[in-house]
């Protein structure tokens, strides 16, 4: 269906449903309960991040997952996309459509230039070249390009901005033909309250479209060529295939995904700064893809979701919350546990992230998806052959 085989279609359907009912699904605990305060993720600001970074990771995966070219500068395209979108808000109006379109185009143009140069090298040289370009963009955004980027203050919309297409009565925040991004409907049911936000649903639709496109690319002849490039470039050229345009196409598509993510970030919150292009941001994208499972379809989305979720949850937990969890234990044990866990929570989130990341690379190089397959493999020997098959095709 929809040009997908039945397995892919199932996966796609699951992603669609998950994305659409996320506001309900991610609020499993009553809103005012202790668990709800700590673990509920179904509020718009966080869900937006899930889907937007999901889009980013899907795009990154088209490059790294299929071709094996590790870009360490992908955040640059995210940043450029955001700048482009905010400029559209400043010059035209708060309508997100031109902003998102331009952010994709701008990221695409930069990806053509950066990709054309970087792809002349492979291996770690490629990684360093992309890193160098991203760092240059970051540094320049803070210095020479201040007129465009507004330097350290960050770019935002001011009252004095032209906004030539803005007519009186238009919303004064990002909107899609009058539907404001921050507009929301709250539904209260018992102890639960679910928030359905316009902005989230716009981003979710883009995620669904991005995911669909990525399945099509994975299953297409081009996807096959890209995997072949990862496997053996010599044979590629002796078969009569020119690897360069294939690589460039993958790089540009991947950059445009990042631009789209950047544009959406700006559409949710119309300001941006150069820190979005910093190399740690690029590193985070890599982490998401690896954590989920590089080269698999769903992995990067899972990775992005998990990282953003953990970031949110772990950095929110503090000693007080821990004490309340362990209150049933004897005091000394309670204090001991809190002391032990303390460095990993709150501001220590990055430490947890680093450890988690190392653990995945060491024990689970295939990421969460492979982990899931392993667990599935444990159940029933008759399914074993199935699992093996699944590991070979770049499926799921």
């Amino acid at each position, binding site marked *: 269906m929809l040009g997908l085989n039945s397995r892919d279609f199932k996966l796609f359907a699951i992603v669609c449903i998950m994305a659409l009912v996320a506001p309900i699904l991610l609020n499993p605990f009553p809103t005012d309960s202790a668990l709800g305060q700590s673990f509920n993720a179904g509020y718009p600001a966080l869900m937006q991040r899930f889907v937007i970074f999901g889009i980013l990771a899907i795009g990154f995966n088209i490059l790294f997952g299929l071709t094996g070219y590790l870009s360490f500068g992908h955040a640059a395209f995210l940043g450029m996309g955001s700048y482009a979108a905010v400029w559209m808000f400043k010059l035209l109006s708060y309508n997100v459509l031109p902003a998102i379109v331009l952010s994709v185009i701008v990221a695409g143009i930069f990806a053509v230039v950066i990709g054309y140069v970087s792809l002349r090298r492979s*291996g770690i040289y490629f990684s*360093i070249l992309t*890193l160098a370009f991203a760092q240059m963009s970051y540094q320049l955004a803070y210095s020479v390009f201040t007129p465009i980027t507004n330097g350290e203050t960050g770019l935002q919309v001011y009252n004095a901005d032209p906004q030539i297409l803005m007519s009186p009565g238009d919303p004064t925040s990002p909107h899609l033909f009058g539907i404001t991004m921050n507009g929301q409907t709250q539904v209260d049911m018992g102890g639960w309250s679910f928030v359905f936000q316009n902005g989230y649903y716009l981003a979710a639709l883009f995620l669904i479209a991005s995911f669909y496109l990525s399945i099509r690319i994975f299953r297409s002849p081009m996807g096959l060529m890209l995997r072949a490039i990862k496997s053996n470039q010599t044979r590629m050229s002796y078969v009569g295939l020119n690897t360069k345009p294939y690589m460039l196409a993958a790089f540009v598509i991947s950059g445009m995904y990042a631009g789209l993510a950047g544009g959406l970030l700006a559409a949710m919150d119309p300001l941006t700064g150069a820190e979005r292009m910093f190399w740690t941001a690029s590193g985070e994208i890599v982490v998401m893809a690896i954590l989920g499972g590089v080269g698999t379809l769903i992995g990067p989305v899972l990775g992005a979701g998990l990282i953003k979720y953990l970031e949110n949850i772990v950095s929110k937990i503090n000693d007080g919350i821990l004490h309340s969890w362990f209150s049933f234990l004897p005091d000394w044990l309670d204090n001991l546990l809190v002391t032990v866990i303390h460095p990993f929570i709150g501001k220590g989130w990055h430490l947890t992230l680093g450890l988690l990341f190392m653990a995945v690379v060491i024990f689970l190089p295939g990421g969460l998806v492979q982990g899931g397959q392993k667990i599935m493999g444990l159940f029933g020997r008759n399914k074993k052959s199935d699992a093996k098959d699944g590991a070979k095709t770049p499926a799921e």
Partner: protein
Amino acid sequence: MDAIILQILNGLDKGSAYALIALGLTLIFGTLGVVNFAHGALFMVGAFVAVTVQKLFSLSYIEIDETRTDFLGNPLKVEMPYIDHWFGSATGAWMQDWSVPLSILVVVPFMFLVGFVLERGLIKHFYKRPHADQILVTFGLAIVIGEIIKALYGANPIQTPPPSAFLGTVDVGVMLGFEPNAIAYPTWRMVYFAFSAVIIACVFAFLQFTTFGMVVRAGMADRETVGMLGIDIDKRFTFMFGLAAAVAGMAGVMYAPILSPHYNIGMDFLVLSFVVVVVGGMGSLPGAVLAGFMLGILQSFASMNEVKALIPGIDQIIIYLVAIIILLTRPRGLMGRKGVMEE
């Protein structure tokens, strides 16, 4: 002319740090075939060893000085550093003053140990894994080390002064026949450069003139063959990892007075050092040193006001720009060998 000499001097200390880190990175890559993204973190650990030693030396207990009184007439309470108490106040004061150079004595065995533990505990499992995995796991390690430092020492830079004897500047200009004060150069940076030069020379001499170094060099050229000769190359490579860590650690200790250590310097220096290694040519030790100094000096030239007026922002991007140009014109860096890291 004097301005140019000043910029060259300015570039030397940064260049020395780049060269030392790049040297270690190259040693690890050349011998173990591992791309170590945590090497900047080792440099940072070195810098924080200096911080720690300085703190330890100033650890004090409260002593009541019966001979003096405070303004209320009570016996004066004074802070008595333990080392003053143990070694006498003259030696104690000297040790506090010289805590940064003295940290070298601590950092060498400490970093060897760290290197040994890392290699045996983590890196060795990654020899056969793809380079991307090595990059990723060491990248994770770098995050972890950075965060541990942050948890222990906080996020703010910590001032770590050099011995007072090296606090001032040296008027290099006078020595070269310029006007007085035309080229005034901080003494400690001079010390740093000299120190780095000695370390670099030692590493090269070690590789050149000892049997051990010879085996390691042979191993860098062709690991399998050397392995077949019945030489236990693995043990030597473990030692090399320790050595590389110690070099990074020493570079970090001595750099602490120049740049107050904070938990991010590891990453800052790593990115630049990697660019240095790639520019020098992956796997080439002389290339790493050459590129380190070259980029350090270029960076300091680019931050001259005259140059900045000509090309705005050039000081921020010069290293990356040079890296891009070199990689495109000389695919394997300045002195790189063919086929390294290109799969």
